[in-house]
């Protein structure tokens, strides 16, 4: 993976050039007394609104009930508030202050839902479930003879080409449908490490399928 995009330093605006609203947030949150307390209260209300909206946006894909969703939103808003205040000095004026703080709320919701998955998972990481893969990929059961060899080759490549860690993560995400964040929680790592492992696994598997003649540049011509 590359890091070719512009980095933080290249995007950095001076705080003096921050928009007036952002500058006011920084002034009040960095101040003291009743004015700061009022700003913290306003910030918490904003974070709670964003976290609540984000939880509701994701709710249709979650196995959580109303009260549990509210709990996640409140916990996410509280933790986001602490994080924003602790990192106030890291705001560089590259965006509006509010956009920067919204990110904390969204990422806290994301992290909490990843941990929540294992409260009632019903999905052990052990074992493999290759039978469901054709359906997940959209292969037509009536055309089994067309794709059987391809998926058999994929399975061989998973067994022979991947490291144990790559195979474990591939199985969890691809065969069992466990969310990557939940996999990261279970394995005691983070989303970036899981993604990097899957990135390397995907590259190896595609190379093996291309070498075996199962995939090629002209695959899109296949119907």
């Amino acid at each position, binding site marked *: 993976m590359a890091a070719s995009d512009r980095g933080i330093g290249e995007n950095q605006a001076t705080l003096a050039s921050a928009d007036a609203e952002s500058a006011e947030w920084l002034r009040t949150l960095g101040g003291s007394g009743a004015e700061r307390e009022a700003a913290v209260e306003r910030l918490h209300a904003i974070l709670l609104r964003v976290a609540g909206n984000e939880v509701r946006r994701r709710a249709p894909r979650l196995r959580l009930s109303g009260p549990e969703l509210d709990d996640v939103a409140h916990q996410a808003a509280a933790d986001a508030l602490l994080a924003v205040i602790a990192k106030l000095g890291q705001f560089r004026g590259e*965006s509006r202050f*509010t956009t920067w703080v919204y990110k904390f709320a969204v990422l806290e919701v*994301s992290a909490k839902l990843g941990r929540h998955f294992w409260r009632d998972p019903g999905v052990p990481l052990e074992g493999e479930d290759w039978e469901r893969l054709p359906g997940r990929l959209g292969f037509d059961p009536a055309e089994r003879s067309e794709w059987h060899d391809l998926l058999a080759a994929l399975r061989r490549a998973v067994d022979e080409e991947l490291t144990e860690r790559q195979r474990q993560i591939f199985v969890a995400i691809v065969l069992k449908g466990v969310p990557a964040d939940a996999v990261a929680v279970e394995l005691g790592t983070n989303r970036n490490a899981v993604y990097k492992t899957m990135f390397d696994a995907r590259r190896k598997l595609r190379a093996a399928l291309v070498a075996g003649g199962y995939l090629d540049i002209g695959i899109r011509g296949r119907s």
Partner: protein
Amino acid sequence: MNGWDELDRFLRTDPRDVGCDKAMELLHVYVELVARHPDAARERYPGIAVHLRACGPCNEDFEGLLAAVADSI
């Protein structure tokens, strides 16, 4: 999209992909640019655009932040 295309799309990797940490580090900047000028955002941050297409969890966070920004406009 059929199963062949779906598998091919899933296994394809792009060397420009910046990964989750870098994408999340700049997500607030990227989202504001997307909200104003989507094409410019993809042009200026190709590695983030590529990553978001390949990484479901990061794309979910992107969609959430974009929705939050849109709500506040």
